[in-house]
């Protein structure tokens, strides 16, 4: 079989470009994190919160962006991780932060499995309604078992030990922040591997045409359920990070509002790309913080105006549109 020299398959160019893209992405996360650390030393709690929410948004991206499942109940996975990590510390004295994170990840996976089993039975609008029902059920359940969760008062008494026995969780939130950045990097690198794996390709196929996927002999349902569990792990880690850094877990972590806001962040940044999830979270939470300080009365109006502007003028989201423009620019030059 004759293969010409400029055959794109033979040169393996896409694989190499992917690798370069990953390195740039990881470097960008580190640079932004370092800048954040030095620019806002008194605001590290907010930055850590952004990282925790970014993990939730990444988690939604896996099922919504990559697989096409619409959900307004994804905070169930985040909240499960937060409560599990919090309860482990407050009730069982398991206060090693790494162990708490692991417990959060497992609880998130379990919540992902459970809500996946229910949500994936429906499609389209009924699916969306089921996801809303789930977050309300989780919320109510956490409210009822107040002896475990603290109910509407929130779960307190979480006292994480020093990280690796060396780094105390200090009052300024430096340890939390650095731990959060490391968690985000690890998750981001693993997700980069995942979305390029055969399974990641299969998931993109499900989003585009589930009937074609089953005509290949693959089970759409099992692909989606597996992705839900993976996304539960990611959201659960985010929840655990939140519990560790704030040392309190409230019912708001299991709320419809958080689910919806996180979905909005994803749309703002751009679905179907890990960078879109990160950009959307940072942009939304930063904007929210700035405008709520500048105008405490009308800040929600401004957030709404921003969203309308993005949906109208950059329907692929901030990152998605920027990437598209960059691609066109490159195309014109090349």
């Amino acid at each position, binding site marked *: *079989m004759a293969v010409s020299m400029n*055959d*794109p*398959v033979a040169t*393996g*160019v*896409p*694989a190499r470009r992917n690798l370069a893209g990953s390195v740039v992405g990881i470097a960008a996360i580190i640079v932004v994190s370092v800048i954040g650390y030095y620019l806002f030393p008194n605001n590290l709690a907010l930055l850590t919160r952004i990282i925790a929410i970014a993990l939730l948004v990444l988690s939604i991206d896996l099922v919504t962006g990559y697989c096409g499942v619409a959900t307004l109940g994804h905070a169930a996975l985040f909240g499960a991780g937060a409560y599990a990590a919090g309860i482990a510390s407050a009730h069982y004295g398991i206060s090693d932060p790494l162990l708490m994170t692991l417990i959060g990840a497992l609880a998130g996976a379990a919540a992902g499995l459970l809500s996946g089993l229910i949500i994936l039975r429906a499609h389209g609008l009924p699916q969306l309604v089921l996801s809303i029902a789930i977050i309300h059920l989780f919320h109510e359940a956490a409210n009822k078992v107040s002896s475990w969760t603290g109910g509407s008062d929130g779960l307190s008494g979480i006292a994480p030990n020093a990280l690796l026995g060396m780094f105390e969780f200090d009052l300024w939130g430096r340890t939390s922040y650095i731990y959060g950045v490391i968690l985000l990097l690890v998750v981001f690198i693993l997700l980069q*591997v*995942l979305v*390029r*794996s*055969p*399974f*990641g*390709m*299969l998931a*993109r*196929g499900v989003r*585009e*045409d589930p*009937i*074609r996927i*089953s*005509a*290949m*002999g*693959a*089970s759409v349902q099992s*692909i989606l359920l*597996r992705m839900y569990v*993976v996304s539960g792990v990611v959201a659960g880690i985010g929840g655990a990070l939140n519990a560790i850094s704030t040392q309190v877990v409230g019912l708001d972590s299991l709320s419809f509002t958080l689910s919806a806001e996180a979905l909005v962040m994803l749309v703002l940044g751009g679905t179907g790309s890990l960078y879109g999830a990160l950009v959307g979270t940072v942009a939304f939470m930063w904007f929210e913080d700035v405008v709520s300080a500048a105008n405490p009365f009308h800040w929600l109006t401004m957030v709404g105006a921003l969203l309308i502007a993005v949906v109208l003028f950059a329907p692929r989201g901030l990152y998605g549109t920027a990437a598209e423009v960059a691609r066109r620019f490159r195309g014109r030059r090349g």
Partner: protein
Amino acid sequence: MSALFEVSNLNKNFGGLAVTNNVSLSLHPGDRLALIGPNGAGKTTFVNLVTGNLQPNSGTVRLAGEDVTGLNAMGRVRRGLVRSFQVTRLFYEMTPVEHVALAVLQREGKSGRMVGNFRGMPGVMEEVRDILDLLGLLDLADIKVREIAYGQQRLLEIALALALRPKVLLLDEPAAGVPQSETARIEHALDKLPPDLAVLMIEHDMDLVFRFAKRVIVLAAGTVIFDGLPQDVTQDARVREAYLGSYANAGSAA
């Protein structure tokens, strides 16, 4: 010799309407069978019954001796009964390489892997290249499918089916929507199908049917009215009645 693929006495009613009426057919390895019929003859229903998207009211579908009537579409694909679609069903944001690789990985049970990339998996890339080369798609290997021509998308449909290494291939109007100037490419691709593969083609384009098929079955009003050689089909009185009769009766029915 027992048949590789055997449909026996298949019936399907929608309400009181018998859309598939006691249809039987069988395929042996290497067969090239075309199923034709006027609009509304029940071809699409037949395809859905055979592939497992619809359950029949009665009758059986057997594949390599095994009764697969109770299996869903996925189970039948895994046993070697693969179809292509009348209207192209592809992943428009993905490239031909990714399409074929996905099918190869799926066949080998590697599609669920969460680490690694198919480009680094031994054997996968070679096979993908061979299949794309066979169908003349190698030049388009890394272009998104939404940017390639419809005729080439039809070829990719066939490539996907081949990558699953089927025993029985069901081609649902492989030339549908392809401009006349490009049907030769489809024909050329069909010539290259593995010789021992059993192929059932549903097609409207009679030129393609005559060149491809060694046997023709005509379906009309859910019933098989002809089963024989391509050269005899146009001479058959019942076939002529089925194709032309609907026009002849249209006036009196009004």
